[in-house]
């Protein structure tokens, strides 16, 4: 919000309890509300889209089927035949993040993916899942991956910690990538929107100049649509890559 000559670009990420005292005691903010809305939208998209269950699909059904095929192919092509088992998880992850990113672009809405707590929780979920799958599929051989094959044993004291660090940095990079992209996008939108309001306060010249930030915001909105989809895709494809490494022997 523009308050005088200062711009509060981060105020939009503040959480407020919903449903009054009940929300306060349940720690229920607008973020879980948007998660519920996102989930309902994803489910409604599939249920309403697939309701005709036609052999020759209509537009909505075709869209739902394309989304299904897109994630299914991503999972199976990247992970391999075992990807079928992880497909519902990857689908949930992708569309949960995508819906969250896109919902955040609506006015008076909130992007729950702009909170690092949420993205880190999702990234840790992926990380823990991949570790569990690795241990289940490879057993103790999983730990052999921390020593690159063919490397001199003498370098092990150097390589193993690097590999372990690199492995452990996965959830950090996965979560911060999404979080930072969302925050950056929303901060920029807020900044340019604030510029418009500030310029509009300068009289006629300001009114004319204020068109500039509006135009930029329109372009930014297009960019954010791209970033929202891209980040959901990156999150999902990296999940698939981690799972492929987990199931690969």
């Amino acid at each position: 919000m523009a308050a005088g000559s200062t711009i509060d670009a981060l105020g939009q990420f503040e959480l407020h309890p919903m449903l009054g005292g009940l929300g306060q005691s349940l720690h229920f903010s607008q973020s879980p509300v948007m998660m519920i809305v996102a989930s309902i939208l994803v489910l409604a998209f599939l249920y309403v889209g697939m309701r005709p269950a036609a052999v020759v699909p209509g537009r909505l059904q075709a869209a739902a089927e394309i989304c299904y095929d897109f994630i299914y192919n991503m999972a199976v092509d990247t992970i391999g035949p075992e990807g079928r088992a992880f497909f519902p998880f990857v689908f949930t992850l992708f569309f949960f993040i995508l819906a969250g990113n896109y919902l955040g672009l609506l006015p008076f809405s909130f992007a729950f993916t702009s909170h690092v707590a949420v993205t880190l929780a999702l990234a840790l979920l992926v990380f823990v899942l991949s570790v569990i799958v690795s241990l289940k599929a490879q057993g103790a051989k999983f730990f052999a991956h921390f020593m690159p094959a063919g490397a001199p044993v003498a370098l092990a004291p150097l390589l193993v910690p690097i590999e372990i660090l690199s492995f452990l940095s996965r959830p950090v990079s996965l979560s911060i990538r999404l979080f930072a992209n969302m925050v950056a996008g929303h901060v920029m939108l807020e900044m340019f929107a604030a510029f418009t309001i500030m310029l509009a306060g300068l009289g006629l010249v300001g009114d004319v100049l204020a068109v500039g930030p509006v135009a930029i915001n329109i372009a930014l909105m297009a960019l954010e649509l791209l970033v929202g989809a891209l980040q959901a895709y990156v999150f999902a494809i990296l999940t698939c890559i981690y799972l492929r490494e987990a199931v690969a022997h």
Partner: protein
Amino acid sequence: MARSAVSITRKAASFVTSSALALPLMAMAAPGARAVGMPQLDFANPLVTGQVIWGGVIFLVLYLLLSRSALPKVEKVLATRRLTIENDLDIAHRAKAHADTAVNDLHQARRSAMAEAQANVEKVVEDARLAALRQTQEMNARLAEDIRQAEARVAAARAQALGSLRQIADETAQALVHQVSGASVPGDVLASRVNDAATAHGF
């Protein structure tokens, strides 16, 4: 292509990550960052951590609903379509096979019918030829018989005519003699003379 896209994505992601990492760190390093900094990093706020619990529950419910109900529904429709298309193709292939068999049968039937018709035509022509030949032979035989009978009759008539010629010659000679001379010649003499004359003329 997917691999290269992934590698580009990863490179881009690592770049974004490195720059993005600096953002919250700077925010945290700033004096009084908690108060004026990023609300996302205010982990003392129970609403921030509460998101994780709510998010976990909502994500789990969404995952269960998608994996148990919504996605199998899509899969069912896709499987039904695959099955329908396969069945339709199968039916079409079978129909084509039937049609091919029917066309072959038709051609076979046509060929055999033509062969049969040809054989029939040849048989009829042969029969007709034989019948005509037989008729011709019969007619020839009948005609030959008729000719033979006619010739026999002619020969008989001729013999008869030649037989009575002597008598007519005798009677004519008698009449001529009688007319010319008014005399009457004895029959045996006259017959002898006529016979001589006839022999002389080759009768």
